[in-house]
């Protein structure tokens, strides 16, 4: 059996976990500008966590990671408090050029102590059990999400609410060229939730690359940033400008390089 959730000695509210009933922790990106995004955290049900929030023994936080440059910081400032179970955070961005990953969660900040659990929204398993919470314990969490989904320097995927289905792929000629993919909102959110990584993500990226390579193969001049890809394909016996160029095969050859699997 493969477990997709971690084991905790106390109840945690998380999708695909059954510690709470009729309870949800939702995150919505309600707006953004060049330098910030605004995230709305909302807790529904989960009366144990709500009680801790009301007693100021828990708080909503968001961790931001930019892997390209070792940036990782957790923000606990609240921009707007709508109610104890609903707040908005204003999260600064390092640069609109890089991929930011976000991890929103609720953290226990009270003293290390024990609790006797007797709460309506807890699963039967936890009722009347005694648990110990340590300062910093994660009480509820959303998965890791990406603001946009950057894959290497060459491929950038953006959410676009105007795209009704699937995605559109284009070649951007600026700054030496890169593949820009505008993706339907629902698909983007599935892609950006790290739980859906691996096969699903690889399959989508493979489709995007196939489309992009097909477009590149029809161009008179290939933008400079793709020169190492063209070189790699040549090493594999493929000529991107030839009439029988196979874009699907090329995407499978290049994908591990773009995903950085050679290096990391």
């Amino acid at each position, binding site marked *: 059996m493969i477990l997709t959730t971690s084991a905790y000695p106390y109840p945690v509210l998380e999708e695909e976990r059954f510690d709470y009933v009729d309870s949800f922790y939702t995150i919505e990106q309600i707006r953004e500008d060049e330098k910030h995004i605004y995230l709305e955290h909302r807790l529904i049900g989960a009366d144990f966590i709500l009680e801790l929030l009301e007693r100021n023994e828990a708080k909503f936080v968001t961790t931001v990671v930019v892997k390209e440059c*070792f940036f990782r910081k*957790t923000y606990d400032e609240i921009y707007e408090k709508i109610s104890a179970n609903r707040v908005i955070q204003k999260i600064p961005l390092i640069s609109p050029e890089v991929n930011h990953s976000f991890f929103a969660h609720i*953290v226990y900040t009270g003293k290390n102590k024990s609790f006797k659990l007797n709460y309506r929204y807890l699963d039967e398993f936890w009722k009347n059990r005694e648990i110990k919470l340590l300062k910093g314990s994660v009480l509820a969490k959303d998965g890791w999400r990406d603001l946009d989904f950057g894959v290497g320097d060459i491929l950038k995927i953006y959410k676009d609410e105007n795209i009704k289905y699937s995605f559109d792929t284009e070649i951007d000629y600026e700054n030496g060229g890169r593949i820009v993919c505008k993706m339907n909102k629902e698909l983007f959110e599935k892609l950006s939730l790290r739980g859906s990584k691996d096969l699903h993500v690889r399959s989508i990226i493979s489709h995007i690359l196939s489309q992009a390579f097909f477009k590149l193969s029809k161009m008179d001049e290939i933008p400079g940033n793709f020169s190492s890809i063209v070189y790699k394909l040549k090493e594999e016996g493929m000529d991107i400008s030839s009439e029988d160029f196979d874009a699907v095969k090329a995407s499978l050859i290049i994908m591990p390089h773009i995903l950085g699997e050679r290096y990391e």
Partner: protein
Amino acid sequence: MNNLQKLNDEQKYHFLLSALDEDEFLKFLQAFENFDREYKVRFDVTFKLSEYEFQNIPFNYYREIYGRLNFNELDASNFKNWFYVNYEAVKNGIIKPYYFAFTEKYKDGLKNITRALREYENGEKKFFNNVFRAVLRRMFGFIKERGRKGIYQDVPFSIAWWKYHIYLNTQDYVKNEKIIEFLYENSSFYNYLIEKMGFTLTVLAERKLLASMLDYVSENENEIKSKKKFIQKLAAASSVRSFGALSVEDIKDVIKGM
């Protein structure tokens, strides 16, 4: 830099030969690389480095290097910028081009190049290629071979910049000047840390956690038997607790209890 990574053997020979003379070296780089619009980096400092100093730049130079470059974290993660910094450093006489040719085992760049050229002329390519790779690693991390790790672990000016940057970030949370000296003296710890926090364990890069950890380690260096195991324990503890949401004092309490 892409072109330098694709040189054939004869071109590599001329490249190494050029490293014996500043002007020839700069001319070679100009001929083989596009100094495109990204070449905006200007770098000059008030000191000149000896070859020994270049191999582990003394921490009293970090501040000036950091201040002159005016990079942010993204700039400092771009291998092209470090190539330009090194170009400027040679152009402005801060270093000699043969300094780049040191390897882990053989530290004398001039001797290394001379030997590499001689062996190549006799049909031996192993040492010749090692020295060529060393030069690219010190100049911009030779990312084709080393990946992004090369930028942070192989380029002396980049290492100085990142150590000072990490130190500066810690000072937002702890006041401890020993941290900069600690990072300078413990290169293997720095390499291990930067590899983990940039790739598999980004949790270690959490600003408050990193500050608390470096504060503790620099003060209690002799009591920690294995710094690598210490980092691993801290990373394991971080997996179930959100240290970034706690105060530095709280994090230090956890570290002390480990």
